[in-house]
């Protein structure tokens, strides 16, 4: 079971320029651990101190927000395309 992960430009500085990778995690937790391991610089940007996915990071599977697919509980399927997209907020509060 192999999935593809797309890395957006904003994050490539932390992945030594890697734009795309394939891996075989069972779920989101495993995927993030895999990314942590491959790209140590990326690690603090994916999850906060308590292990939660950062608020400003959206994760999509085949164009669908992973939170609609069950989030942490979603089991990756063969050929899934995962997209990491930093959210674009304005700020001020």
């Amino acid at each position, binding site marked *: 079971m192999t999935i593809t992960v797309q890395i957006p430009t904003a994050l490539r500085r932390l992945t030594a320029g890697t734009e795309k990778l394939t891996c075989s995690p069972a779920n989101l937790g495993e995927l993030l651990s895999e990314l942590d391991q491959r790209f140590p610089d990326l690690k603090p940007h994916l999850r906060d101190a308590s292990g939660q996915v950062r608020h400003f990071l959206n994760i999509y599977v085949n164009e669908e927000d992973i939170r609609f697919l069950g989030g942490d509980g979603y089991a990756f399927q063969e050929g899934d395309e995962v997209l990491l997209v930093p959210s*674009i907020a*304005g700020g*001020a509060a």
Partner: protein
Amino acid sequence: MRYELRCRECNKSWGNQARSICDDCFSPLEVFYDYDSIRSSFTREKIAHGPPSMWRYSELLPLPPHYQPAVPAGFTPLLKAPRLARDLGTKHLYLKNDAVCLPTLSFKDRVVAVALAQARAFGFDTVACSSTGNLANSVAAQAARNGFKAWIFIPADLEPAKILGTQVFGAKLVRISGSYDQVNRLCSQIADERNWGFVNVNLRPYYAEGSKTVGFEIAEQLGWRLPDNVVVPMAGGSLITKIKKAFEELQELGLVEPKQVKFFGAQATGCSPISTAVKAGNLEIDPQKPATIARSLAIGNPADGHYAIRAINKSGGWAEDVSDPEVVRGIQDLAETEGIFTETAGGVTVGCARKLYRQGRIQSDETTVLCITGNGLKTTDALTGQYEAEAPIAAKLADFNKYLESVLDAPVKSAIPETVEA
């Protein structure tokens, strides 16, 4: 420069460039100003001599030096609303009427005007946006006016008037099968590959500042004082945070007396991630799949949701949401009582205000401003079936008198039906 981009979270300075995210911590960027350099030139007297548009507040907008605006956006009427006030059980109600904002009849004209000023400064020849409609109209029109090429991305099922009102300006309109959230995600990917000025992606920090002018105008038009409450419709959640920023800047610069203004957010129940979070006491939103006629507010994963929740909580306000029938009734209430035809978002605002008065969260003796952000002529389909087509009568006085008798005999429709309590 009297302003620059800084990270909201780690405070790193990014100067001025087409960028919305901090590369260090991936948090959103915000425009910060050197208020000390602005203080002496941003006075009530100077503003009073400025143009009758949002450009009277240029000192507190991120504009390139010597910028010459091409559209007279903003400075829309702030109207006292005595008949709607009576209906809601108050005496001190105002409407900020951006249904007549120029050039395309929504508050989005303000944000686009600022974004395009920077798009030119950064050297873009093409501007773009993802939009639920009003932004599409505004980018298309102002791109034409400023000589940019425009690419507009919208959910395929948008109201026909908003589609036509984009195409007429010669913009490239791309309809996407899916919700706004999918359109927005796609635009993030496109912005990653193309050197385009996406007003709500890479130009977003500048763009969002345009919304502050709603707040500046409310304060000036109230005679340089702040209201007790503001009710603001929420889609991405940016407008409510920027009106709050505007009030804070006016206090910082001494133009108004300090005051804690309560901010109330309004959503349609069919797409209510922010109001749901506020009511549940959550500080983050859970994304939703939108299902509402208020398509201009149909953003299920609002980019500024987190900040909107914080702004509402910190102000002591609240958030509410209303059903689609209540949205329609809100449109009709505003039209029948005050002669203003607003789009569905305005119906949401009026409907939520009614709930907030009933709940006692807004008190009848307080001064409250409702933000009407768009024009009803763009969403007439929301009223389909509300009005019967009258059979024509002959052009004869006798026929008219007969018709009048039949109409006067008909039972009078109740103007305000009961609404469901929260």
